[in-house]
């Protein structure tokens, strides 16, 4: 229909090119809203189904918003058919910080602030480098020191009393951060032409990937103390962290290996022909390209690992999810499990969605380099 209309201006354009060029490309006609919603059978069907879904969700809206109790000091007022958000408000310190001594809870709060600050500083790729890595090392040290205390008048707090969001964040950051270099080593080992490192890498990767994380956590928290020589002991949190780290490493290794395979052989050849030693060529030429190629699956693994930290509750580490569960079992309140889980779920969502958005932005930047 619109095609003949469009042809006439093109014909006149040949006679008046300068004027037409100033007009720019022809504007696209907007599709009317009714045509979008009910234009054909598929669109109409989807519109109806979406409408039905929205209607079905109305009771949830009623429960979560309209009938909800938002604030009360009296637990008895909850439980009348609406959500009890007042409970989350009352227990938020416990959910976020667990059984960390109440007077000292500014310390985990400071740790969360420190994590946020470090993450913000690390976002722009132009900040990446040795100095940022050092800064992270110092920051992690400071976080752990703050949590532990025992110096400068800060009372000592054992890891058994750590809990909530700081534990979740520390486990996620440390397992991914320490897992990454191990993953790179494993990935390079698996692609090596020398049999011994290749075999070892395959063995580690396949063994870890073949085990459920829950099993790995049990092994590290129950069996590792038995295997260690007498008198040795590793903190429970440390053992959990070890399990998460090696688990993350195995998965990251396979992602990175995929990236390595995507780097053309000519890159290494060019580096070698220029006389760059093999390891420097791997580090400066091959690896950066490999990692750029696998930003989406790396994001995927990072998000999965953030959520995997919640599994540590089965070996008795007090992360945010365990804290929320424990909070909800308080007999004073009418068992507000849904509210607790929804709140914790929302916090996880915020973290994971932020990672996802950041990765998407990063990917866009990489693509800008390739074509413009």
């Amino acid at each position: 229909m619109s095609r003949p209309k469009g042809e006439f201006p093109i014909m006149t354009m040949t006679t008046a090119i300068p004027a037409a060029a100033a007009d720019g490309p022809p504007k696209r006609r907007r599709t009317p809203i009714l045509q979008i919603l009910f234009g054909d059978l598929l669109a109409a069907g989807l519109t109806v189904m979406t409408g039905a879904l929205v209607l079905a969700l109305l009771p949830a809206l009623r429960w979560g918003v309209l009938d909800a109790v938002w604030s009360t000091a009296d637990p008895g007022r909850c439980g009348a058919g609406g959500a009890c958000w007042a409970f989350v408000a009352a227990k938020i310190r416990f959910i976020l910080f667990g059984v960390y001594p109440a007077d000292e809870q500014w310390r985990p709060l400071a740790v969360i602030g420190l994590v946020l600050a470090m993450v913000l500083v690390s976002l722009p790729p132009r900040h990446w480098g040795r100095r940022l890595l050092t800064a992270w090392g110092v920051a992690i040290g400071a976080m752990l020191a703050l949590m532990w205390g025992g110096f400068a008048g800060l009372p000592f707090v054992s890891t058994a009393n750590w809990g909530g969001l700081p534990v979740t964040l520390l486990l996620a950051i440390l397992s991914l951060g320490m897992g990454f270099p191990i993953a790179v080593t494993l990935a390079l080992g698996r692609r090596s032409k020398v049999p011994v490192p290749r075999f070892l890498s395959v063995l580690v990767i396949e063994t870890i990937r073949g085990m459920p994380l829950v099993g790995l956590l049990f092994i590290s928290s129950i069996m590792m103390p038995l295997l260690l020589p007498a008198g040795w002991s590793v903190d429970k949190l440390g053992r959990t962290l070890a399990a998460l780290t090696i688990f993350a490493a195995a998965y990251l290794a396979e992602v990175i290996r995929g990236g390595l395979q995507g780097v053309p052989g000519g890159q290494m050849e060019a580096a070698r022909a220029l006389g760059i030693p093999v390891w420097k060529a791997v580090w400066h030429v091959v690896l950066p390209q490999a990692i750029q190629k696998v930003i989406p699956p790396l994001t995927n693994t990072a998000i999965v690992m953030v959520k995997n930290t919640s599994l540590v509750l089965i070996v008795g580490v007090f992360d945010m999810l365990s804290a929320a569960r424990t909070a909800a079992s308080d007999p004073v309140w009418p068992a507000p499990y849904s509210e607790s889980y929804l709140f914790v779920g929302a916090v996880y969502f915020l973290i994971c969605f932020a990672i996802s958005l950041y990765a998407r932005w990063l990917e866009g930047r990489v693509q800008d380099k390739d074509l413009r």
Partner: protein
Amino acid sequence: MTSPMPVHSPAPAAASPAILIEAVDKWYGTFQVLSKVDLTVAAGERIVVCGPSGSGKSTLIRCINRLEEHQAGRIAVNGVELTDSVRNIDAVRRGVGMVFQHFNLFPHLSILDNCALPQMLARGTPRREAEDRAMHLLRRVRIAEQAAKFPGQLSGGQQQRVAIARALCMEPQVMLFDEPTSALDPEMVKEVLETMVSLAEDGMTMIVVTHEMGFARRVADRVVFMDAGRIVECAGPDEFFDAPRHERTRSFLHQILH
């Protein structure tokens, strides 16, 4: 192309030739790609190697900087014998620049870094000095204004000129070109060839694998024709093009010139 910068005047002809290839054999599995290849290249000499695809010409020049390993015979570059010694291989590679058919620039680095980083990694040159030399050579291939861009934002011809600058940054005594214009659009071939001609005018020792016969006639001191892993004919350009001695050379020239 005129360039006032005689950056790489070759060392005065020493006793040993720039490149010595003697009775070199190479197999891929059971397939022999090079058989009894002999070629001696003096410092400052320009050699063009041509031949049908699969004739072993790329393999030959890739053996010179050990991207491929030869299995019999000997290869020496500037008097350094290519053995399994890693030190020798690195020494040879530092003195031999290579330009590839597909440029092989590092896509994650800016044009400037493509030229500066290899110097820093291979020779420990300080960044400042490496960047100065990089800019100098980018100016020489007339692409300095693109220094901040990335390879993906440049045309093929521009990328190949950057690749030449990158190789020159290592101050090689010998340059190898492996079909440098084969992957280019026709209108970009000229700019790359001009850069190579200017390099030749400055006295660089060059071995160029190419089908650009105009370039061969204009620049080459000797043209080598290879077929089935052997050097069939090796002669000065006038004799090679006007009076080739071997029937195989004649039919090859006939095919690509007509």
